[in-house]
């Protein structure tokens, strides 16, 4: 197991009134436990507000859980910020609008000392080649690309650090179905090639079915069902999973 999360809870305080007193507590996640096997894809599915993104941020150590722990296999993941990458939902917000694509790709290479300055350009071209983009992208700005192309750039940037695990938080939800399919095919190829582990978050069960080996179904911060992809799709045991399947099958 490359990731092992045990009894994670996350509460957010609701502040209000004068002096920002605490007036309530939002239970975003409640006692969530799961493990991810190496080179597999764990799909996390749930509606908006179910805690998917909070979970992604906790696993990526962008926020701390209120309770519980996330452990990583230290033999494989020893430099966390290098070995674990995250790709966000909105490619318009996750690329700096004032950085040329080459700068966005050079930065992780330099920070993690993965390339000498004179190798940077070749490395960046290699990364762009993996996501099927050409050399001309290097000197351009994010605004010059479509949503699908920007998400390709985000994938290239994530691959720059040679990660072991990538957390994908609804990476395609803002894109057309045809573009989504092309990117999913790309993500599967990249996963094979670099033996990656994915934590793939989506509200779309069909996408989860296409990508995942194991699935967690979240509802209001709790895991209502988890298991292998095929069992879950053929025999959902929780009524919420069944209702999600029904809406997707319509």
């Amino acid at each position: 197991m490359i990731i092992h999360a045990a009894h994670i809870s996350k509460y957010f305080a609701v502040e209000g009134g004068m002096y920002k007193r605490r007036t309530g507590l939002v239970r975003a996640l409640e006692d969530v436990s799961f493990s991810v096997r190496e080179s597999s894809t764990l799909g996390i599915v749930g509606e908006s507000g179910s805690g998917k993104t909070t979970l992604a941020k906790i696993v990526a150590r962008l926020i701390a859980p209120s309770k519980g722990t996330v452990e990583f296999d230290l033999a494989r993941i020893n430099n966390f910020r290098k070995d674990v990458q995250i790709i966000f939902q909105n490619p318009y917000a996750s690329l700096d609008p004032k950085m040329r694509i080459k700068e966005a790709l050079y930065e992780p290479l330099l920070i993690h000392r993965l390339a000498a300055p004179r190798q940077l350009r070749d490395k960046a071209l290699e990364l762009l080649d993996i996501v099927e983009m050409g050399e001309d992208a290097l000197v351009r700005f994010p605004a010059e690309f479509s949503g699908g192309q920007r998400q390709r750039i985000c994938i290239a940037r994530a691959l720059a650090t040679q990660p072991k695990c990538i957390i994908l938080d609804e990476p395609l939800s803002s894109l057309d179905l045809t573009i989504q399919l092309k990117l999913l095919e790309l993500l599967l190829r990249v996963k094979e090639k670099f033996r990656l582990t994915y934590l793939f978050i989506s509200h779309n069960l069909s996408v989860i079915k296409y990508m995942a080996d194991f699935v967690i179904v979240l509802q209001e911060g709790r895991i209502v069902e988890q298991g292998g992809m095929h069992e879950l799709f053929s025999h959902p045991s929780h009524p919420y999973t069944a209702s999600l399947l029904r809406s997707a099958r319509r």
Partner: protein
Amino acid sequence: MLEISNLHVHFDLNGTIVKALCGVALGVGPKETLAVAGESGSGKTVTALSVTRLLPSSARVTSGEIYFNGDDLLLLGEGALRKVRGKEIAYIFQEPGTFLNPVYTVGNQIMEPLLLHQGLSRAEAFAEALKLLALVRIKQGRRVFFSYPHQLSGGMNQRIGIAMSLACRPRLLIADEPTTALDVTTETEILDLLCELKSNFGFSLLFITHNLSIARRIADRICVMHKGFVVEEADTERIFSSPQHFHTKELIRAYQAIGTL
């Protein structure tokens, strides 16, 4: 009822001419649902907006006709067109959060077309607005009436959008990706609601989507667009059973892989 023929639209972006529509032709019959499907950038939204001349000022209709009940909407004066917009032809847009005005209560916004087009008094408009809220299956209509858009969920705001669009009982409803921003379960609810309202009110529906599974659920006919051209148009089942064009096949491939279970 709506007949678009040979529609050409160009955008002038600081001197660069971009051809958005190149001879688009499509028609929607009475009580019919036509789905316009295509990738982003294929010209779906431009087609929808050009029907009542809502395009931005950088756009120019270079040729074509848009007949609605016998009038060419492209030749109609601004005053006459205003009587068509919202009254005869109404819209629902993709982002329910952005087409609603954040500084007015939703009730106020539902009342606006009623006051403007129907000439109702404020009291009558208020009563009618509450009826409309009930019609789109909103419980606690009175509470919602006095809410602001940011206090409501996306699905709720989309219901408000539908209520507004139906306020004047339009004959044609143009829905531009109305469920793209919503969850699957909410999406199902909104689509069911639209189908139900359509059979109750008998309006025609021009439905724009990039997702063929949605088109399949609601449309009588599907028109596939690519880069400003209509590449294929046929009955819904025919599109799926014998797609002719490469881009139709691509849409179906995506639909089969990740658009359905």
